[in-house]
């Protein structure tokens, strides 16, 4: 049985077989023989290469959260990840022109108006949550096509704040 997991920006294939009470796993191009069991619904004990590991697991919002020795992994199936990320601010391609709220919060400041010209790195807006301000900067130089929110407005994570249009002359390759 193969599963493709998304961890951050990376995809990982995991092939899982069960054999004589053990799991045979192929991941990152290596094969592992693993013994595992759920101690409680949130706690899995694993034995890999004679070594015991405690993995703590929870599921929510279509993702699996796993903690092992203080490291925290968020795993999702690629389809679900795409659905979850739909519309959330992206560093690549089209997303670079859409300035979205990185978290729920309130819009403290909008530094630009429609039709303003902006340079890569310019601060376009400031969003606040948990009493911390986060500046949103232009990933490309361009022109402000649309400002979708007002100062003081409450926004959700991923909500579109500002739309840019790349300047025809200044188009860069990624």
């Amino acid at each position, binding site marked *: 049985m193969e599963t493709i997991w998304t*961890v951050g920006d990376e995809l990982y294939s995991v092939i899982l077989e069960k054999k004589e009470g053990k799991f045979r796993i192929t991941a990152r191009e290596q094969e*592992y023989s693993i013994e595992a069991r759920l101690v409680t*619904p949130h706690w899995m004990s694993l034995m890999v290469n004679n070594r015991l590991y405690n993995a703590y697991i929870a599921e929510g919002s279509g993702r699996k959260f796993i903690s092992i020795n203080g490291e925290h992994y968020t795993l999702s199936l690629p389809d679900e990840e795409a659905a979850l990320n739909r519309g959330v601010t992206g560093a690549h391609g089209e997303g670079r022109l859409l300035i979205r709220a990185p978290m729920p919060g309130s819009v403290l400041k909008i530094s630009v108006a429609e039709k303003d010209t902006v340079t890569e790195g310019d601060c376009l807006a400031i969003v606040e949550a948990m009493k911390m301000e986060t500046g949103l900067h232009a990933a490309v130089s361009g022109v402000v096509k649309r400002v979708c929110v007002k100062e003081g407005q409450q926004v959700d994570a991923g909500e579109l704040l500002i739309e840019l249009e790349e300047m025809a002359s200044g188009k860069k390759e990624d």
Partner: protein
Amino acid sequence: MFKKILIANRGEIAVRIIRACREMNIRTVAVCSEADRSALHVLMADEAVCVGGPAPLDSYLNMERILEAAGISGAEAIHPGYGFLAENHRFAARCGKQGLVFIGPGPDAMKLVGDKVASRKTLSRIDVPVIPGMKAAGASLKEFEESAKEIGYPVMVKASAGGGGKGMRVARHPAELRLSVEAGMREAKAAFGDESVYLEKCIERPRHIEFQVLADHHGNAVHVFERECSIQRRHQKIIEESPSPFMDEELRRRMGDAAVAVVRETGYTNAGTVEFLVDENRKFYFLEVNARIQVEHPVTEMVTGTDLVKWQIRIASGERLTLKQKDLRQRGHALECRIYAEDPANGFLPCLGKIHFMKNPEGPGVRVDSGIYSGYEVTRYYDPILAKLIVWGEQRSTACSRMVQALSDYVILGIQTTIPYLMDVLTHPDFLSGKTYTDFIQKNMPDWTAKKDFLVEALAAASIQDVLASKTPAGPVKRAGVSPWQTLGAWRLGGR
């Protein structure tokens, strides 16, 4: 002693105060905002009153409602914790008028030390070195610009009312000044309800070392030694320790004396902290007095064997401070890590959402001051601090090892936290060797990314869980037929 105390705060510090009260046989009244009805401090109190909407100004900064709640519940005293109204001298004064004991310094001393500009003037009478800076909060951009020029860049923008890094910004060049002042004012307003800011000379590559003080209403005052809090990100302390790895007996004596002198000169009572910057030549500068219990108070408690929150309550009730300077001693080493709901791999963006599962670290010398639980939902309205992890060890090195183990045992699932980041700070050679300057993070932790040492195990666990879960009931696994585990013995002993 008081019979009932209202706690005008939330989160881990409210829980900490409730614990102290319970042990002193004092009933507790929690206040909460509408967003905090399920907060741990509400669940742990004897009584709870919802005082307003989620925005701090409507609830935790809402003096009227909090005083009303104290009246209704019959509380005799109010503990303000840190932040919110803790350093608001008007609130302290209003408590007094309503016949409530404010657990903290008196309003006059609080006003004096809280106004960083006025307090520097007062302290010029005693021999405490201060950092060159403005004599009053700035009123116009022009005034800020002129002062900055006089003081000399780089300058630091600081909130008059505040602490904890809120409202603090550096301006390295005249061009940066306006934005830094504006940002500082906005943050100060949001955090303290007062937008006044002022400028100060920015000491480069300093250590942040502070002294805990205790003073009663009978003229007794002691310092309870130092804490070093140099590990800061955006002027926000993230790791604190005691003793300071930089300190020697001579410097400790001089700084401790200075701290007690500040307390005496300002007429300060109750627990407080005198903050200093120390440069590489062991020259120290008075920074400010934090007129409240501090986030990092547990490291002092663990190293000196004192209970600062209980002393706050005892002093406020009029008891004498029985601790004597000559009897106080530091033993071993304590570290504190602040656990924030922030994503360190993503610019420390605040992380909101449900904590699906969590497990605190345990064991000898490990203390967790926490405001969360499995099932708790982190909201957007308040500081992202979830909990503090404090450890004690015989030496600094043993405390560091213990902290790394405790962090690796700390499980918080559902939101990103700073735990993996803190582990990397704790194991950094500069941290281990005590090279702790306030630029540590900037210098040593640029572009941090999470280690993935257990990625294979995580992938395996995720995949196997689906298989095992389909076989097992929702409850804990119990007497399953032949679990893979049951081959462990044979497998190891047989050497297969």
